[in-house]
């Protein structure tokens, strides 16, 4: 699975979590979306771990700067899982 495919799946997760529609792009950051606060961030991580069957390490999600980097992290975790 590549970055674009992951973002496509992320879009569906975001559509369920956010009240206002958010169109995901690789460059999008949390700061650009008013609703995307620390509590919603936790819900995103919970949903993503459940959806993809992966686990993040402490601090690594917070270290990503935008949706593209977050998607790349997911791609990496999926690859590790299937390796």
């Amino acid at each position, binding site marked *: 699975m590549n970055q674009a495919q992951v973002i496509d799946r992320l879009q569906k997760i975001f559509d369920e979590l956010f009240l206002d529609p958010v169109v995901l792009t690789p460059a999008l950051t949390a700061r650009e979306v008013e609703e995307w606060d620390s509590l919603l961030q*936790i819900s995103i991580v919970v949903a993503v771990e459940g959806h993809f069957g992966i686990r*993040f*390490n402490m601090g690594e*999600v917070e270290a990503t700067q935008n949706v593209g980097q977050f998607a790349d992290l997911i791609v990496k975790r999926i690859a590790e899982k299937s390796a």
Partner: protein
Amino acid sequence: MNASDLTFDEMTQGLQNTHDYTISEDVYTAFLAASGDRSPIHVDEVSAKAAGFEGCVMHGSILNAFISHFVGMVFPGKHALLLGVNLRYANPSYLGDMLRVSAQVVQRVESQSVIEMNVVIENITRGVRAASGKILSKVRAP
């Protein structure tokens, strides 16, 4: 009662717990005072029966109050920080009903010290499900 003190590490996948609650007169009147929700279906027996209920329907959010107690005092207890509750009310509850809250850890998010639990609330008095849903809670370090 003293609050439980289960840690994130102790809240393992599949762990479950239950606790019983009663919608007593004290609970009902305190919730009426706190919420101010005096909709006829909740306070007027005649209106409630005309709407097809056995009597005054207890506020669904009383169940949320029980969830608050359950998470903060029982499971996991004092290290919990409740992040979200998503309840679907299945059947009405009435004054005096005893409810059994049962929850099970279904997901642990290590990186956030967050647990997700499935919760079921059975109405023991009436033998029906009162509500079910999901709880999201952070478990802070002791």
